[in-house]
């Protein structure tokens, strides 16, 4: 009977979904740092990372100033500021704005421990943060975190990597 076959196939798909969930949980269990089973938004994860660095209440996004491509290009050309790429390392390695350092939102606490001394040396210097561009929020979160950490001059290049690469501007790799 066709209907019996459809029912069997549907049951197989449900079984596949259950097996996949079990495999997914097992893979996560053996990760270096297993992820929580309850979802946390990027901002909640950032709060948790920031709490590792400073004991402050959760920060608010949007304290930083926003700049456009022309101003960002001028800053990069004149080497007037510390440029921060807030994307994850594989994207940074694949291509980034020349001179930018990788302080990712996803791995903020670890990256900050590594880069913090360098940043603190130039505490008064302007810092400009960017991420993928478009609707990405990583740059705003990293910028807000840096403001919380006491860096006074932090700006966000909202066009991000998308606008920079589309404009055919120089790119560094690695």
């Amino acid at each position, binding site marked *: 009977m066709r209907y019996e076959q459809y029912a069997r*196939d549907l049951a197989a798909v449900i079984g596949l979904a259950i097996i996949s969930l079990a*495999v997914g949980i097992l*893979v996560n269990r053996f990760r270096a740092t297993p*992820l929580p089973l309850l979802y946390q938004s990027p901002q909640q994860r950032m709060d948790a990372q920031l709490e590792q660095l400073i004991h402050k209440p959760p920060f608010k996004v949007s304290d930083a100033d926003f700049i456009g491509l022309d101003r960002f290009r001028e800053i990069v050309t004149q080497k007037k500021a510390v440029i921060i790429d807030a994307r994850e390392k594989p*994207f940074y390695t694949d291509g980034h704005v020349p001179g930018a350092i990788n302080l990712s939102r996803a791995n903020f606490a670890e990256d900050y421990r590594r880069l913090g001394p360098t940043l603190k040396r130039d505490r008064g210097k302007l810092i400009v943060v960017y991420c993928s561009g478009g609707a990405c929020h990583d740059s705003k979160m990293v910028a807000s975190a840096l403001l919380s950490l006491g860096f006074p001059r932090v700006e966000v290049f909202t066009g991000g990597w998308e606008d920079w690469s589309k404009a055919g501007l120089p790119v560094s790799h690695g």
Partner: protein
Amino acid sequence: MKNWIDPSVTPYRWVELAIRLVVGGLFIYAGAIKIGAPMNLADSVAAFKILPHVLIMPLAMALPPFEIIAGALLVAGYRQGALAIAAVTTVFCVAFISTLARGMSVDCGCFGGVGSATVATNSLDLVRDIVIVIAVMVVYAGRSGADSLTQSGNSNS
């Protein structure tokens, strides 16, 4: 008139093979690149604002293995793989229709990418997924009644 969805018709068998290899391969690829970064996928799932928080991580963990296994089953010629892909892609279609109806645009993270999305790209995602559902249902319809596509080929030879 001969039914076109008939495993005994030679052009159909070539089309079916192409669908199995292309769609199955696409799902294996999509699952493989997402399995190492479930948090990115979870963020994409959350951005759709459809599922309750408690279901986001289980879905983000289950989806990549599901895509890999379903893709492999389809490539290997099991009709259950076609049905699994049709089912999950139909869910994606509903999600895209829901976001478009709400005037939102969401980076689906379908292939692990992180970037921006627009209503236009989401519309293209929806069209792509509708094409996939139709394609795999053609495979499934041609294979209903046998345990695998391979067996179907033998039964008609």
